[in-house]
């Protein structure tokens, strides 16, 4: 069996006396689309920050592509691309400049080559005709697509996406899910996706881990469909089979 892309071992995070989660452990295989899910405030984004080296865990160890995130942060960051929840595009740069930035910083490619590559990435996320627009001139869905293109700029083997479909209409959200599957098929990279959108989870996830605020840790790990079918945890069942508290009109 090949080494996992990410290994999370007994990881915990506290802020003062407040425990966010503790004893979280799982492995993510190379080429897998792995979803971290859970309700608001359960620590999904905190776990993401730990995995990308923005936050040191107060307990445990995270290894990304064989590198200890806490001690070899730079090596980890050279191997990952991150799409932040807001997109975090640089507002003073056009979309193509946003994508060319990592290429200019970390490669010796000539300008024409950087432009060619950036255009290709934009085309890959369906934004070929928007390269000269500023982030303030595009929609939320386009910003998320552009952020994915920027995360892909250096073709990292590992991509972290923080709530890619949050706040998007169902069609755009489904389009992003399709894009993630297409990118995995085309580039064979590993995805870690933070989300609590059920449709998205079932559409893209090979496996998932579920965090829970009450339990202060993980309460489920596995294939989403199997968890929905066979988990005996009440919170997991409530999450996967949630019923609307307000009956739809006409029901």
């Amino acid at each position, binding site marked *: 069996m090949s080494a996992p892309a990410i290994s999370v071992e007994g990881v915990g995070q506290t802020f003062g006396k407040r425990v966010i989660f503790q004893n979280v452990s799982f492995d993510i295989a190379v080429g897998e689309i792995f979803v971290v899910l859970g309700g608001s405030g359960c620590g999904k984004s905190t776990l993401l920050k730990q995995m990308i080296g923005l936050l040191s865990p107060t307990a445990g160890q995270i290894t990304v592509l064989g590198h200890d995130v806490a001690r070899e942060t730079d090596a980890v960051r050279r191997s990952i691309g991150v799409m932040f929840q807001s997109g975090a595009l640089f507002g003073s740069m056009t979309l193509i400049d946003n994508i060319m930035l990592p290429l200019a910083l970390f490669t010796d490619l000539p300008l024409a080559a950087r432009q060619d590559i950036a255009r290709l990435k934009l085309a890959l996320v369906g934004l070929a*005709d928007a390269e*000269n627009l500023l982030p303030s001139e595009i929609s939320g869905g386009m910003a998320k697509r552009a952020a994915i293109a920027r995360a*892909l700029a250096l073709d990292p083997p590992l991509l972290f996406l923080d709530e890619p479909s949050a706040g998007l209409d169902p069609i755009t959200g489904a389009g992003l899910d399709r894009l993630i599957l297409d990118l995995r098929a085309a580039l064979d990279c590993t995805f870690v996706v933070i989300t609590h959108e059920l449709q998205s989870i079932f559409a893209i996830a090979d496996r998932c881990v579920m965090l829970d605020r009450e339990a202060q840790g993980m309460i489920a790990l596995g294939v989403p469909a199997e968890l929905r079918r066979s988990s005996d945890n009440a919170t997991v069942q409530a999450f996967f089979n949630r019923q609307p508290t307000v009956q739809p009109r006409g029901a």
Partner: protein
Amino acid sequence: MNAAQLEIRTEGGGTILCFTGPLTARAIAPLWSRALATAKAPTPLTLDLAQAEMIDTSGAALLLAIERAHDHTITWHGLTDAQTKLLTQLRAALPQGAPIMPAPATIVRRSLWRTLLIRVGFFGETILATLALPRKLRFLRGAEFFRLADRAGTQAVPLVAMMGFLIGMILAFQSAIPMRQFGAEIYVAALVAISLFRELGPLLAAVILAGRTGSAFAAELGTMRVNEEVDALVTMGVDPETMLVIPRMAAAMLVMPALTLGIDIAGLLGMGFVMMILGFPPDAVIGQVQMATSPHDLLLGLFKSLVFGAAIGLIGCRAGLTAGGGPRAVGEAATSAVVGGIVAIILLDGLFAVIFYRLGL
């Protein structure tokens, strides 16, 4: 990571580009230009990728760029199924023809007329909001007003005291040199006092207020505009002029006379310090100041500072509330507030000079 290698061979009248190593973003830089230059030749071209370890999208971009640069058919050799699939997918994603080049928004500037209209309109809306204030007092928040006044006034006191003291000293020293030639050094006290009360006190306080507070108003309101907080207020039925502009203007107007007085006093102390160094006793200096100035000099300066405060507050708020989108707009709003504020106080000062002269004040 190993660097990618490119070997260019000529066989049977055609050219073979033989790639070795990883074709990735970090590895392909040395061979990009050479590969494209070779591809432009009209001879038959073969791309040999049997020795290429891996091809990512940047590597694929290079291969597609070669394909575009070469007008004739290319023979591909050594591509795996996955690589062929990647290239096919990327070819399909790329738009045909030149990319659409919409005009970037950054070069779109408001016309002078439109800018003037916005500024006059904002001024008018603020006046209307002020007139309608008695009916909208519930929109004002006392705590917010005192927070603004504290930031604009109390927190500026150390800076004002230091600036005033230093300006008083500098003025006294600079004036003493020519005055000494006429044996009129004692009149330095009168000169500095009149300058401070009528001109320098309000002007310096206004520059400090424009730099510290006008820019802060613009940045704060600009961020609120970008975050749609202003739109949220409007949809609640609250006009931003009442809730955001009037408290800031009032805070600026409230603190400006106090700051001006602070600069006047600190400036007189600085001047007194220099006069003592020059050998004049404090009584003589105080007497000279009392003789040369009258309360109306001080009051005229304080009145001017009140107007300057209103102008700086108004310009800062206007810059923030009319900011465009994105973080750059917030920076531009802050710059506009400082530049606009300083220009406005200089113009107003000139206007006051003419009016006071005509009125004999």
